[in-house]
């Protein structure tokens, strides 16, 4: 068990309520005491030290904090940690195995789908949700699926190519 307050701060002051929740993160159940107002993104970053999920805008516009919640892409800056109690989430840290990258990760590297890297985890998680639903998307379908995720560096063209690269590889692997 890990406790948010044990790891980042002294115990909450008297009168500050906490709640114990259990969330399955990248396949592993994690139990954690959180303030009810704690955002899921902050729980992941500060409590569980999974800093691959980035906090960009706090208003659910930029998508840097996109994770998969029960397989669906959501913006973890606009969900409370307590809402994730009993649920299963996936973050960028769960994409690769110890020996192998996920095809989406490979695609982003091969097609130069990132520059500063800040939007990348969110982009990849949104892409994963798309490809699991639609293994053979058109360029327009990729652009639409990623339209909740902002990138300031790449101009998106290479991100789209990265996702299509991954789609092709995933289709080849599943055959």
């Amino acid at each position: 068990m890990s406790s948010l307050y044990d790891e980042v701060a002294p115990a909450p002051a008297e009168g500050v309520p906490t709640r114990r929740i259990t969330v399955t993160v990248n396949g592993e159940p994690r139990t954690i005491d959180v303030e009810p107002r704690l955002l899921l993104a902050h729980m992941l970053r500060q409590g569980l030290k999974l800093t691959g999920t980035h906090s960009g805008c706090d208003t659910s516009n930029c998508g840097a904090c996109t994770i998969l919640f029960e397989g669906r892409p959501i913006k973890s800056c606009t969900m409370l940690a307590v809402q994730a109690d009993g649920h299963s989430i996936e973050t960028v840290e769960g994409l690769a195995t110890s020996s192998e990258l996920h095809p989406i990760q490979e695609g982003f590297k091969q097609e130069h789908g990132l520059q500063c890297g800040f939007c990348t985890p969110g982009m990849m998680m949104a892409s994963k949700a798309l490809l699991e639903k639609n293994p053979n998307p058109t360029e327009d379908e990729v652009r639409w699926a990623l339209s909740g995720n902002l990138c300031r560096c790449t101009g998106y063209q290479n991100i789209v190519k990265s996702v299509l690269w991954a789609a092709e590889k995933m289709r080849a692997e599943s055959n």
Partner: protein
Amino acid sequence: MALDEIKIGGMGASRRRVEDNRFIRGKGNYVDDIVLQGMLHMEILRSPMAHARIKSIDVSKAYEIPGVRLVLTGEMMAARNLAWMPTLSYDTQAVLATDKVRFQGQEVAAVIADDPYIAKDACQAIVVEYEALPVIVNPLQAMASDATVIRDDKENQPGNKVFDWEIGDREATDKAFAEADVISKMELHYPRSHPSPMETCGSIADFNRATGKLTVYMTSQAPHIVRAAVAMVAELPEHMIRIVSPDLGGGFGNKVPIYPGYVISILASILTERPVKWIEDKTGNLISTGFGRDVYLKGEMALRKDGKILGMRMNTISDHGAFYADAQPSKFKIGLMHSTFACYDLPAAHLTSTGYYTNKAPGGVAYRCSFRVTEAMFFQERMIHAAADDLGMDQAEFRRMNLVKDDMFPYRTAFGFLTDSGQYEKCLNVGMEAIGYSTFKQEQEEARKRGKLLGIGISTMTEPLGAGNSREYDILGIKMFDSAELRVHMTGKAILRTGAMNQGQGHQTTWAQIVAHELGIPADDITVEEGDTDTAPFGMGTYASRSTPVAGAAVAMVSRKIRAKARKIAAHLLEVSEEDIEWELGRFYVRSNKERGVTIQDCALAAYSNMPDGMEPGLENNAYYDPPNLTWPFAAYFVKVEVDAETGVWDVLNVVAVDDCGVRINPMIVEGQIMGGLTEAYAMASMQYITFDEEGNCIGSNYMDYLLPTAWETPGFELHEVVTPCPHHPIGAKGVGECATVAGPAAFVNAVVNAVSHTGVRNIDMPMMPNRVYEALTTGKDVSGMPPVRISD
């Protein structure tokens, strides 16, 4: 046998990026990812008012919240002589407000607490009493004779003027106008925009009382400048200051200035003797940190009726917000605005510029541009477009006639820059061919008959990238050179450090490629480090497309120093004299017997184990590079649009970009830079701007109001390449990272104006939102000036 340069990841290889290995795994190391033992968290309370006197600040309720360790106010900063700090343009800026607040979002107080949530709560508990003052939101208001003086904190500051500046030859320009057949005019506003990198600004200050050392992890594109500034502002000895820029989530000029938050976190750490982390939220970033642009540009062009340009005069009125906090070379008050028209053979030119304070956030930073060249080139290409139309000439042919010809280099521009290379006409031709220019007019006419409005826009430009030379370019007196340090280990692997600062450009990948090109050491064998002032050599940082022109040159030069020493070692190993030795990539050999040779790795081992008598051991060196001139890339951009006459909505049909940035180190990365720049150009042309209401409230303080294009709106791009090596750069490279942001916007605007030109409209200000285009279409009048207060009102 010589190595295959592409195989070892040398110049010209589209080497996949080293950085990606950590970013795609979510293992980047941005400031907010860093956790230090015992770290506290800081939050800033910002002013809700744009201009007000502070009557009182009551922090007592904030201290009642458990977990609050310290609340800082302007008064407490003033007691330590830290209420004000110098800017990078010889002005001063409030760190925490003492007397007045001068823009909405200004820093008023800071809370340091156990956790960021508590710090935010405590900010809400601080009670500040304000007394409203008249608000000035544009230069017209600022220049009025009865205007409230915003900077009454400064002595000898009679009005709201920041500077008056002029350059060029007024007499010769007057004469050109006297001789002109046609005089063409243009007036426009380049609206305020925010670079808005995905990652906001932030810092972790860690002052260690025991050692006296201050370490600051922070989001800076220029960590060495920060070290110097902290030494001066905080009066700490420079050797006891370590600035570390870890991974930066984008910069685009936004992370060049020194912000109050950094300074406050430093003081907070000194006072609490604990590390203090400050991570700005998005609204804080958008309303208080360096914006770009906000310039009114007006000018006219003297023309001969055959199309030859005789002269140009231009005036800029810039809005600098409450503090003149641009970072720019100290000699030039409005940056390199006078690089305007540098690609055209212009006999005479004159520029006057005036800057004003307003009650808006400070800045005027070079947002993905080399010190105001974005505004310069935007005006240039709008003016050129209008002049061609006024003359009834074809846009491409008018440009072709006036562009500097290949045989005219080196060419001295009317404002005194020396452009040194290019194939402008070739770039124009490549673009025309790719976009189908020759058949466009017919296509346009046929479409009009069907009620469809098509338009084509061209933008051609060369821009000055890679400041300095040190004769002309300095920031706060520090000359604009850059540096590299290379250590080759005994097994032939190496570590390279530079004074530049990567923020997505891929320096870890490309710098190693330059070393590979110069020494034949495979790029994979070279580690690249930047951003830690304790280890990196002094450099001026990364902005203004200066990394490859300056630091990249230093990388080549230090590699050559290493090669020169390795040559002596090779002669010793081969038992011949140095003069009898030849070099091919990765290997020295005896001229008379090519089979007899030693590799660079052999030389590296010998440098530690078998050096010649009298030679200093080791194989390392450094180079400080002061470029002889700026580099001058050329860009020709073509945009085709369709405008919906019913709604004013416009769609991009085609974007063709032809870039000549000299020799390309990593073509994949260069193309990535160009596409990113084109997207920002499209963003500014279509949606991205920040405005203010009459009370100085920032409209655009979050991503719901400040619109950035997504993958859905952003068009696709077709890229082409022309290569004219830079004659003075050691590897022939020129800057490129900003060309598309600089030249791109005019191509979009020219295309939309072209589509609606039958109505008589000559200008629509950016962003060309559908309502503006619709207004232009239906009234046949220009839509220029910015709501809610137009400069002509």
